[in-house]
């Protein structure tokens, strides 16, 4: 690895606080009980802000280092000293993890602030903030870990926090089921990741990033492919990629701020982080990289198509998230030149998707938890701030220049084209068109057109504690892309160069401006189609039944969920029930039966103890006579 690292000094030796602070916050709120109800949310928000400040200071100090020495290792203690395996609890700050800590703590702080308003009337608000803090600690551990074991620990912990937050309203059956679905689907990926970590240890004799990557070039292609495919399996589950994407839409059962933080901006991008972080391994296997790209483009299209027919505003955003993370996978699979672009799209997506989720939360807040877009419409008048900020998010995601998404998505398509991978480019372009369609559809059905809101619901704007985070994210969605891309020395690509190495962009014969114009044209077609269908024609309050087969398929989520249910879930349930029966009747039956046999027999036998002395005497006399008779018989032999 070209990056020199050195022991952490100054503020960098306080990196552990990034994890310890939110963890302490979560512990305080969970153990403190009801007496922390009054100030719990303020404590949690304060801690989130403190981690952001710490991340910012660490970033500034890191930027002050020489370009090729931007790596700081904070050795805390030796975590697992077992024979040949010595896992150190090391935190590792480099340009990549620094970018992630800023995103996680920054969006995290905004979500905390927003949740103060959103969860105000929830009796369990304190518990919600405890989980948010727990998530913050887990996610920061995941991105700061300096070896695969610690990454795995963080990986599992974000899974747990996600499970807790999805099932936050566990009195709702759907929320409890969704939490289970998310957890079990993630388990599939966790198996892949754990086998990958073990394989890495067996192959390299260590799990530390620097040692593994330094020796990556000695990998045989077979081993490299095996490790990378297992890592990809883990990444697919966590990032909700095809074929393990099914849990994310159901995860919308959780409170909306949690969806914004975990299921849009940060946790679901952990898969992209894992692949980007392990890039020296992936570079040893072209097969694995190709598969990453394939997974990415398939997911872009699947997510996009299903998002087009969803009527639930959060579900549209969920499928949109799946689709956008597909773009990141697409980019990260295209090799060295495209890693920074994947991270770039990840950051901009973190801004605008968190913004739109929180905007959707604001809409739900104003409409008494209505999520069906067919019962919205014309909300731009009732909720002007939410509308304006959402507008910024919409322009950013469809890639309108100069909003954030334009720069990142455009670069992905441009790289695909420059690599000569025209099929990928065309499909990516199609994905961009679909994105424009479903997001414009969402805007038309929610904010524009005529009002279809129920008579007894009076839409109102959310309090400022909720709208201010929206405004901050809106500003980031507007300028984030330009700031991260255009400033020459401070551009993200340049910033990440010490991690990913320098690589010249492949240049195609076609000017990038022409490609951008093509992309924008496709986006306009998508947006215009949506406008014709959902703005110029009236939207019905219930979803129409007589629809074309493709719409019907998309409404059935392209049958992924049904197939998984009938092939995996039902047999699993039958197996579980059979095992419960076997356990209850078989194993417990044998144990309980033996006990009942002994009990029953002794119950009858004790009747022999009659309490009459004469009967005992008869027993003694009889026994003595038997003994004597036996002796006589033996003597007679």
């Amino acid at each position: 690895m070209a990056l020199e690292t050195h022991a952490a000094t100054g503020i960098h030796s306080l990196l552990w606080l990034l994890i310890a602070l939110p963890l302490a916050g979560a512990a305080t709120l969970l153990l403190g009980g009801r007496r922390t109800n009054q100030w719990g949310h303020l404590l949690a928000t304060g801690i989130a802000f403190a981690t952001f400040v710490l991340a910012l200071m660490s970033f500034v100090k890191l930027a002050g280092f020489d370009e090729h020495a931007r790596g700081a290792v904070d050795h805390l203690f030796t975590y697992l000293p077992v024979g040949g395996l010595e896992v150190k609890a090391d935190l590792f700050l480099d340009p990549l993890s620094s970018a992630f800590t800023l995103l996680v703590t920054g969006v995290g702080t905004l979500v905390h602030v927003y949740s103060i308003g959103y969860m105000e009337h929830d009796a369990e608000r304190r518990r919600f903030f405890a989980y948010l803090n727990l998530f913050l600690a887990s996610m920061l551990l995941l991105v700061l870990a300096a070896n695969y074991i610690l990454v795995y620990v963080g990986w599992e912990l974000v899974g747990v926090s996600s499970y807790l937050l999805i099932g936050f309203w566990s009195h709702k059956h759907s929320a409890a089921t969704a939490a289970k679905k998310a957890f079990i689907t993630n388990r599939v990926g966790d198996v892949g990741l754990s086998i990958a970590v073990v394989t890495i240890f067996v192959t390299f004799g260590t799990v530390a990033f620097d040692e593994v990557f330094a020796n990556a070039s000695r990998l045989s292609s077979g081993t490299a492919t095996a490790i990378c495919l297992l890592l990809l399996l883990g990444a697919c589950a966590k990032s909700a990629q095809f074929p393990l994407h099914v849990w994310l839409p159901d995860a919308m059962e959780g409170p909306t701020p949690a969806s914004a933080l975990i299921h849009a901006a940060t946790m679901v991008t952990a898969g992209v982080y894992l692949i980007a972080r392990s890039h020296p391994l992936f570079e040893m296997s072209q097969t694995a990289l190709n598969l990453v790209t394939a997974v990415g483009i398939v997911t872009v299209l699947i997510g996009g198509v299903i998002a087009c027919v969803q009527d639930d505003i959060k579900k549209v955003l969920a499928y949109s998230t799946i689709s956008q993370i597909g773009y990141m996978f697409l980019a990260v699979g295209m090799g060295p030149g495209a890693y920074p672009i994947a991270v770039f799209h990840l950051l901009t997506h973190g801004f605008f998707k968190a913004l739109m989720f929180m905007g959707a939360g604001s809409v739900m807040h104003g409409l008494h938890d209505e999520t069906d877009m067919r019962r919205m419409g014309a909300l731009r008048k009732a909720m002007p701030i939410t509308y304006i900020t959402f507008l910024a998010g919409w322009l950013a995601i469809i890639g309108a220049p100069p909003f954030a998404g334009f720069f990142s998505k455009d670069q992905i398509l441009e790289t695909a084209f420059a690599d000569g991978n025209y099929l990928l480019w065309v499909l990516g372009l199609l994905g961009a068109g679909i994105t424009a369609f479903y997001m414009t559809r969402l805007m038309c059905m929610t904010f524009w057109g005529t009002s279809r809101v129920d008579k007894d619901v009076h839409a109102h704007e959310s309090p400022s504690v909720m709208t201010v985070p929206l405004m901050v994210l809106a500003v980031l969605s507007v300028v984030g892309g330009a700031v991260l891309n255009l400033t020459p020395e401070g551009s993200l690509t340049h910033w990440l160069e010490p991690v990913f190495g320098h690589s010249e962009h492949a240049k195609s014969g076609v000017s990038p401006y022409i490609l951008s114009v093509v992309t924008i044209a496709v986006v306009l077609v998508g947006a215009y189609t949506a406008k014709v269908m959902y703005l110029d024609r009236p939207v019905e309050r219930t979803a129409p039944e007589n629809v074309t087969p493709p719409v019907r398929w998309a409404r059935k989520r392209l049958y992924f969920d049904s197939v998984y249910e009938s092939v995996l879930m039902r047999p699993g349930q039958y197996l579980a029930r059979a095992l419960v029966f076997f356990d209850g009747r078989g194993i417990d039956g044998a144990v309980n039966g033996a006990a009942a046999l002994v009990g029953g027999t002794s119950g009858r036998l004790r009747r022999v103890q009659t309490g009459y002395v004469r009967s005992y005497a008869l027993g003694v006399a009889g026994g003595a006579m038997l003994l004597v008779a036996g002796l006589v018989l033996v003597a007679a032999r």
Partner: protein
Amino acid sequence: MNPAYYLFLSAMLFTVGTIGVLVRRNAIVVFMCVELMLNAVNLTLVTFSRMNGRLDGQILAFFVMVVAAAEVVVGLSIIVAIFRTRRSASVDDASLLKW
């Protein structure tokens, strides 16, 4: 005289005692039957002692007498105590200690 006659006598006495213990209800009578059994055994011991020309059996008979005397003291006091509380000397009435 043939010593075996003494053995027949003691066997008959022992049988009478055993049957008495098993069929009689009055605690005092049961008690006397037990004494009868003990003395039947004593007679056997003395007879065998005589037959074998050794004193072991006679010494053992003394031990049995001592034990029987001690047993009479304890047993009779128990019977009196039970009679005082329950107004009955029947062994079948004192059947609380069961199951």
